[in-house]
C-alpha cells in the first residue's frame, strides 16, 4: 500500500504540473492522490468492485480538498482534479479502442466475438470508473456550494 501511494503521488505531481498549478497545490494534490490511491488499492484487494471503490475514494478526496481549499485559499478543483488523474482509467480506454480496431481487422467469427466482448467490457469499465470519479469528487462541491465557491475570498 505504501509503495502504491508513493507511485500515485509521483504520478499526480507529474500530471498536475502540466496544468500549471501553484507549488502548494501540487503538494496537496500529491498527498491526496497518495491517500486516495492507497485506499483504493486496499479496497480492491479486499474484494470491493473497482468502480464502487473509486466512487468512495473520490468523494473522500472531494471532502478533503474542500478542507484544504479553505486552508490555502485556492479553488478545490485545482488540487482535486490532479489527484484523481492516477485513477483515470487510461489503460481500459486504450484497450477499448485497440479491441475495436482488432474487431475491424479480423475476419474470424469466433475471434470477433472475443474482441467484441473485450470492447464492451473495457468500455463499460472505463465509463463507470470515469462517472464514479467525477460524481464522487463533485458531490461535496454540490452539497456545500457556499463554502466551495468562496474559498478564494480573503475577508
Amino acid at each position, binding site marked *: 500500500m505504501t*509503495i*502504491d501511494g*508513493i*507511485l*500515485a503521488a*509521483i*504520478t*499526480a*505531481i*507529474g*500530471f498536475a*504540473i*502540466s*496544468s*500549471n*498549478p*501553484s507549488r502548494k*497545490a501540487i503538494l496537496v494534490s500529491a498527498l491526496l492522490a497518495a491517500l486516495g*490511491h492507497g485506499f483504493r488499492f486496499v479496497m480492491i484487494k479486499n474484494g470491493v468492485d473497482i468502480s464502487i471503490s473509486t466512487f468512495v475514494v473520490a468523494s473522500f478526496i472531494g471532502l478533503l480538498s474542500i478542507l484544504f481549499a479553505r486552508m490555502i*485559499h*485556492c*479553488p478545490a*478543483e*485545482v488540487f482535486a*482534479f*490532479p489527484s*484523481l*488523474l*492516477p485513477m*483515470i482509467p*487510461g*489503460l481500459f*480506454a*486504450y*484497450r477499448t*479502442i*485497440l479491441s475495436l*480496431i482488432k474487431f475491424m*481487422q479480423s475476419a474470424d467469427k469466433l475471434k470477433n466475438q472475443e474482441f467484441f466482448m473485450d470492447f464492451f467490457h473495457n468500455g463499460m469499465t472505463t465509463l463507470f470508473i*470515469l*462517472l464514479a*470519479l*467525477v*460524481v464522487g*469528487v*463533485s458531490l461535496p462541491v*454540490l452539497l456545500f456550494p457556499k463554502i466551495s*465557491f*468562496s474559498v*478564494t*475570498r*480573503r*475577508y
Partner: protein
Amino acid sequence: MRILQNVSRMADNFGYRLDLSVFQLSIIMTITDRDDSTKRLTLIKKTKQLLINYTFVSNLSALSWDTHDKHLTYEEVKKRFHEIISEKRTSRWIILILVSFANAAFCGLFNGDIYAIELVFVATLVGYFVRQEMMLKHINHFVVYTTSSFVASLVAGMGYIFHWGNTPEIALASGVLYHTPGVQLINSVLDIIEGHILTGIARLVNASSLMICTAIGLFTAMLLLGLDKL
C-alpha cells in the same frame, strides 16, 4: 460554473447585470445597466485555445472576490488582470522530466516490472519532447497526438523486440498514457452534471478524438514492429 459566477460578481461590482454563454470556439456575453435597461452591450468573441492553467484559475477567482469586497476601480482590475495573465508557466524542461517520472510511476501502478518502468520513462521522455516541439510550431492537435504516441510506442515496443523483462505488454500500453486528457474528461462530465450539456458534449467529443488519435499512433507503431498479432 465558476466562470459564470466570477464574471457576474465582477460585473455586479460596477453596477451591471451579466448574461453569458460559453461555446467551444466563442463566447456570447451581454451586459445590461441595472438601473437603465436600454443601456446594454452584446459581444460575440472568438476564444483562443489555451493550455490548462490552474494558476490563472485560482488567481482570477481571487481577483473577482477582491473586486467584490474591496470595490476596486476598473483601472486597478485591468492592471491586476494583465499581471495575472502575463505570469510565466513552469519551465518546459521541468515539465518534461516530471511527466516522464509520472508515467514511469504509472507503469509501476499497473504492476510493470523494473525493465518496463525504465522503458516507459525513456518512451515518455522522447514522446513528450516531440509533442512539445510540435505544439510550439502550432501543428494541428490531432496530428501532434498521433505522431507523439507513434514515437513513444516505437520506443516502448523495444521491450518485445529484445525480450526485456517479463511485462513488455504493460510497457507498450502505458507508454502512451501521458496523452490521456484527464482534466478535459473530468470537466466534460462535470459540465453535463451541472446542466451545461452542449459544452460538456463538445469537450467529451474533443477528448475522445484525442484518445482515438493516440490509439491510432500506438497501433501504427505496433503494425510497424510486427506486434499486431498479439
